[in-house]
């Protein structure tokens, strides 16, 4: 279980997360919605271990481990996965090389035998087929020249290969047309399991038509100001985010109760 307690974070001295509370139990899918600038992506980056953000207060407990004390790579090896809003292009590193480096780093950590080239290829090709990626993407540089949709599929492919315990999807739906969205969502749904939790960060309700969350939280000014079921997302869809800001100012946030 992931338990975020009163998390504060800043970048260049500017506070972005201001006392965020959230609990995600094993197997649950939580959606985090909120207007631009509410701190959604900061939350994702802080959870993944980006050190350009300073954690200025609070704690994150993950199955008894102090998550914030671990460097990014150890979080990944322990089973945390971040699907990037803007996947990074790495010229000169082939996708195949990258995927194999990642998969084997994590398998080594878990005490599993590393894949040899043949086993790895057959595994990766099967997963690529499932997310609708052509084989040529294996031999191209990581994300270089990929379209928005191709980048996002590549993220879902990595998630499938790395088999995380906790996946954080940062606006995986942004920039996708409806077909790409459906494929990406299918990829995510296929990975839902009682052992795997997910935090799905999105600006739009649309993604939640395909990935049905157990809980929806609304983030505003770095705090969760409303939590509820799916109907909360529909409410946001109908009324926009304006009422959230108005409400948040009128009454202090009560924080999320989690699951």
């Amino acid at each position, binding site marked *: 279980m992931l338990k975020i307690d009163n998390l504060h974070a800043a970048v260049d001295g500017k506070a972005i997360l201001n006392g965020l509370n959230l609990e995600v139990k094993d197997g649950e899918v939580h959606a985090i919605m909120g207007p631009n600038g509410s701190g959604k992506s900061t939350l994702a980056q802080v959870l*993944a271990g980006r050190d350009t953000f300073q954690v200025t207060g609070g704690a994150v407990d993950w199955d008894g481990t102090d998550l914030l004390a671990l460097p990014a790579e150890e979080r*990944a090896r322990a089973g945390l996965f971040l699907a990037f809003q803007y996947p990074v292009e790495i010229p000169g590193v082939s996708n195949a090389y990258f995927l194999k480096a990642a998969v084997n780093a994590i398998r080594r950590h878990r005490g599993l035998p590393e894949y040899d080239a043949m086993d790895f290829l057959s595994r990766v090709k099967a997963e690529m087929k499932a997310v609708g990626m052509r084989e040529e993407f294996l031999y191209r540089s990581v994300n270089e020249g990929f379209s928005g949709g191709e980048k996002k599929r590549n993220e879902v492919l990595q998630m499938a290969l*790395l088999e995380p315990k906790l996946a954080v999807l940062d606006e995986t739906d942004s920039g996708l047309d409806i077909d790409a969205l459906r494929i990406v969502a299918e990829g995510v749904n296929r990975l839902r399991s009682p052992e795997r939790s997910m935090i799905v960060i999105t600006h739009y309700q649309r993604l939640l038509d395909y990935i049905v969350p157990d809980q929806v939280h609304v983030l505003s000014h770095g705090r969760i100001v409303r939590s509820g079921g799916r109907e909360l997302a529909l409410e946001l869809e109908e009324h926009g985010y304006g009422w959230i800001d108005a409400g948040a100012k009128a009454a202090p946030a009560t924080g999320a109760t989690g699951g």
Partner: protein
Amino acid sequence: MNAIDTWVARHRERAATLPGAAVPWLATRRHDAIERFAALGWPTSRLEAWRHTSLAFLEQHELAAPEAAPHPATTLAALRTGFDDGDHWLVFVDGRAEPALSVMAAVPAGVTICALSEALAHRPEAVETAFGTARDAAAPHALNLALCSDGAFVHLARGTALEHPLHLVFIGATGAADTHVRNLIVAEAGSEASIVEHHLGGGATLGTVVTRVQAAQDARVTHVKLQRQDERAIHLAQIEASQARGAHVASHSLSFGARLARNDIHTRFDGEGCEALLNGLYHVDGRRHVDHHTLIEHAHPLGTSREHYRGLVDGNARGVFAGRIIVAQDAQRTDAIQRCDNLLLSKLAEADARPELEIYADDVKCAHGATVGQIDEDALFYLRTRGVDETHARQLLTYAFAAEVIERIAQDSLRRHARATLLARLPGSALLEELL
């Protein structure tokens, strides 16, 4: 006696024993060359072309042959692994041909490959034009002409093709503190060859190398220079190419060794529709210094040039790149791209990259750019979120940055060799290799 006089004295002492001593035109040129060298002296930073690489220190620099060196046969055996049996090997030890170590596979009729000393002994007229003169030469290249003790002579008759690469191996052993080699490559119309220079060896030596390439109409010449001498050597090199109509010249300069390495690379399009690729990579660490000075002269229309240089600069080292492209008024529809990108791997490392375009034609497509930067933090974080530790991620990104240059080497065995040489220089090579 000042240091310049020492070199003049060396010329006097050696003149009688240098190859071609009895060839009148050569004796004259060598004489003119040493005079030019003596008049110019070592270039200092007052000269624009040597602004970042003054050689004034050579006035007082003690040269010494290495005290010990592996047997050249051992060095050669290690080098040959990984290359095809059909490759040709012309070996030079301390600046002189070593026929006992050279391995020449059968070459097609019309292809001549021999030591320059041999050509000068038997057919000096065959090399007279290609040899060049010291007129307009920079001091180190004039010194080379005055003192060159050997080198390779390659002549490809019209339409001939050398299927396997020719390797010119220059090994510094314990016999010389200074070496001067000159390679002449004459590719007649429609001929084709790949020629690789390997520069190896140690000691506080001074080596000059001049390689002259004449590519006639539609000839294709690929030249690879792999410089990995140890860290006390001074290496001063020039590649001078001329291209007739439709000729294609590719130069790959991989500069990994030496205390100071300077490469002057120049090609000139003397006809329409020429193509040139100037591709280079340098990796410098410690207190080492490497400088590439390139010039591409688009003197005729429809020429295409691509220039890609990358540098990995570590420690207190310095990497210098100055590239110039001149597009003459007549050279319409020239297509030129020039880039130099540097990765600084330490706080004290320094890189100077100066791309220059001089365009006198009005219908051209030219682009240039240069960068000096650090490893991309976003890419580093991305790799770390995939479980790759920071050290390995840095190594991977460093390798990937440099490998893009190596991937432009078309010939498989040469590309593999260059890749392995680069990997062996970088930390973490075991992990990287496993994944390649």
